[in-house]
C-alpha cells in the first residue's frame, strides 16, 4: 500500500477516534482532552491547545493544552483571532497576530456567526510540510470541536442536551461519511468505468438491508462496506483496471486480489460496525463455492455478503465496462434470476425485487435504487418482471 493511502487510512481512523472522544460519556474536560490528544496524534504535533472564547468576559480561556507556555496563551488577543475570519485553518507563518511561542497553525472555531474559540498546533516532530489535505482535515476537525464546544457553552437542561447529542452524532456521522465518500471517489477515479460504482453499490445494499429489517447500526455497517468493498483496487495498476481486451489468467489472478486487499485495508480501521470486514472480504464469493478468494459456500456466507454480491453484480451489469456495453435493467434482473442458488441468494433476490417494485410504485419517499437506473428504462416492463419473480420466489 502506498504511504499516501496509509496516511489517508490513518486519518479516517483518527476521525473515528475523534467522534468517539466527542460522543463519549466522559465529563467535558476529559472529552476535550481526548480530542486534543487525537489531534496532536494525527498531526504529530508536540504542542496543541484548545481555547474557548467566553463572550461575557470577552476573553479566551484555555480548555486544555500541551507544550505551550500558559503565559503566552493568556496574552492572546481574541479580537485579533476574530479578525482572522471564520472556518479556515491557516498557517500562521509570520502573522504577528499569532506570535505565540511555537504555534504554527491556527484553526479558528466558529458556530454560525459566532466565534467560539481556536485550536492551535505547533512543534512538529517530523519536518515535512503540511499538505493541503492536512489543512482540510483540520477544518473538518475544527467543525467537530465547534459543535462540542457549543454544546458545552449552552448547558441546557437534560432533554435539550440529549437532543443535542443526537444532533452531534448525526453531524459526526455526516462528516465520517464525507471522508468515506472522498475515499470511494478515489477508488472510482482510478477506474474510469466504475465511476460512482461504490456509491451505487452502497445505496443498493442499504435499500436491501433496510427492507430485510436490519437495525440502523447494521444498515450503517452495510453502507460503509458498500463504499469500501473495492478499496483494494487502489493497489492495483490503472492499466490493468482499464484494460479493454479480455484478461489473461495472470491478470485475472491479479485483479482478484482486490477483495483481500480491501479486507486488509478495512481491518486497519477500528470500525464501530462488526460486519464490514467480512462483507468486503467475501464480496466475490458464490453460493456454489466457485467464488474467490476462499471459495466459501452456502452457510459460510453471511447475509451481508449475499446482499453485497447481488448489489455489486447488479450495478456491474447495468453500467458500462471497458470490454462491454451496459445491459438494460430487465436483462440484468433476468441475469440475477438465472444465477439464483448458484451465485445469488433467493431470499436476498426476493427482497431486492420487492424494494425495487416499491420504489417504482412510488411507495418509498426516498428511493435508493431507482434514481441510479437508466432513465430510458421501460418501468412497466420491469414492474411486470419483478412481480413475476416475487410471486415465484414467495411461493418457494
Amino acid at each position, binding site marked *: 500500500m502506498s*504511504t499516501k493511502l*496509509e*496516511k489517508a487510512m*490513518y486519518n479516517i*481512523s*483518527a476521525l473515528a*477516534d*475523534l467522534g468517539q*472522544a466527542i460522543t463519549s460519556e*466522559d465529563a467535558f474536560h*476529559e472529552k476535550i*482532552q*481526548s480530542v*486534543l*490528544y*487525537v*489531534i*496532536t*496524534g*494525527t498531526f*504529530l*504535533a*508536540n504542542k496543541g491547545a484548545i481555547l474557548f472564547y467566553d463572550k461575557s468576559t470577552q476573553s479566551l480561556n484555555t480548555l486544555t493544552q*500541551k*507544550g505551550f507556555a500558559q503565559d503566552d496563551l493568556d496574552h492572546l488577543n481574541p479580537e485579533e483571532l476574530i479578525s482572522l475570519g471564520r472556518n479556515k485553518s491557516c498557517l500562521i507563518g509570520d502573522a504577528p497576530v499569532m506570535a505565540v511561542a511555537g504555534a504554527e497553525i491556527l484553526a479558528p472555531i466558529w458556530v454560525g456567526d459566532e466565534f467560539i474559540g481556536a485550536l492551535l498546533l505547533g*512543534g512538529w*516532530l*517530523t519536518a*515535512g510540510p503540511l499538505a493541503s489535505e492536512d489543512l482540510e482535515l483540520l477544518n473538518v476537525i475544527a467543525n467537530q470541536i465547534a459543535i462540542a464546544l457549543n454544546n458545552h457553552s449552552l448547558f441546557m437542561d437534560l432533554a435539550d442536551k440529549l437532543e443535542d447529542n443526537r444532533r452531534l452524532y448525526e453531524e459526526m456521522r455526516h462528516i465520517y461519511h464525507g471522508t468515506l465518500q472522498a475515499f470511494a471517489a478515489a477508488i472510482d477515479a482510478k477506474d474510469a468505468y466504475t465511476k460512482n460504482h461504490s456509491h451505487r453499490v452502497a445505496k443498493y445494499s442499504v435499500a436491501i438491508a433496510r427492507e430485510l429489517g436490519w437495525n440502523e447500526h447494521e444498515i450503517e455497517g452495510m453502507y460503509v462496506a458498500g463504499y469500501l468493498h473495492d478499496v483494494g483496487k487502489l493497489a492495483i495498476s490503472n492499466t490493468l483496471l482499464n484494460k479493454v481486451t479480455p484478461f489473461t489468467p495472470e491478470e485475472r489472478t491479479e485483479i482478484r486480489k482486490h477483495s483481500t486487499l480491501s479486507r486488509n485495508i478495512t481491518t*486497519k480501521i*477500528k470500525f*464501530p460496525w462488526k460486519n464490514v470486514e467480512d462483507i468486503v472480504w467475501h464480496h466475490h464469493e458464490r453460493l456454489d463455492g466457485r467464488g474467490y478468494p476462499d471459495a466459501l459456500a452456502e452457510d459460510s456466507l453471511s447475509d451481508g455478503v449475499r446482499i453485497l454480491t447481488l448489489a455489486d453484480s447488479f450495478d456491474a451489469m447495468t453500467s458500462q465496462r471497458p470490454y462491454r456495453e451496459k445491459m438494460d435493467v430487465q436483462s440484468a434482473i433476468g441475469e440475477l434470476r438465472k444465477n439464483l442458488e448458484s451465485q445469488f441468494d433467493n431470499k436476498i433476490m426476493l427482497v431486492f425485487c420487492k424494494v425495487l417494485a416499491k420504489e417504482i410504485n412510488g411507495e418509498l419517499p426516498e428511493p435508493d435504487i431507482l434514481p441510479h437506473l437508466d432513465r430510458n428504462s421501460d418501468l412497466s416492463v420491469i414492474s411486470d418482471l419483478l412481480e413475476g419473480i416475487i410471486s415465484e420466489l414467495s411461493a418457494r
Partner: protein
Amino acid sequence: MKSVQFSVASRLEGAAAIIYPKGYLNNLSGESLVIECGVYIGKGITKIVVNFSETDLINSIGISMLLQIMEDLRNINGTICCTNMSKFLSDTFEMLGLMQHMLVFPVENDALEYLKTRKS
C-alpha cells in the same frame, strides 16, 4: 469493541527503565504511560525501553502519548528504544515517520545490550 483496560508496569535495569504498556493504547488511560516515564525521567533516568509485547494496537491518542514521551526524552538528551512491536505498530510508526526518532529492537534484551555498550 471491548478492550482490556490499559495498564502499565515497569522496572529498572541498570541505568535504563523498562516500561511495559499493556492493552490497547487508545484513550486517556494511556496517560499512565507518560506519567510512568515521567517518574523515571524525574529521577534522572535518560534511557527508556518501551516493550510493546502486550500492546498490539495504537490509535491517534496513543501516538500522541508516545510523542510526549519522545519529546520529554529529547529535552534531556535521552534515548527511547521500542521493542517487541507488532507489525501493526511498526507499520504505523513507519508510515508516520516516527522511526527516525526512536531506536527499534526486535526484543527487549537487544535494546538493553545496546544501551549497556553505549555511553550516554
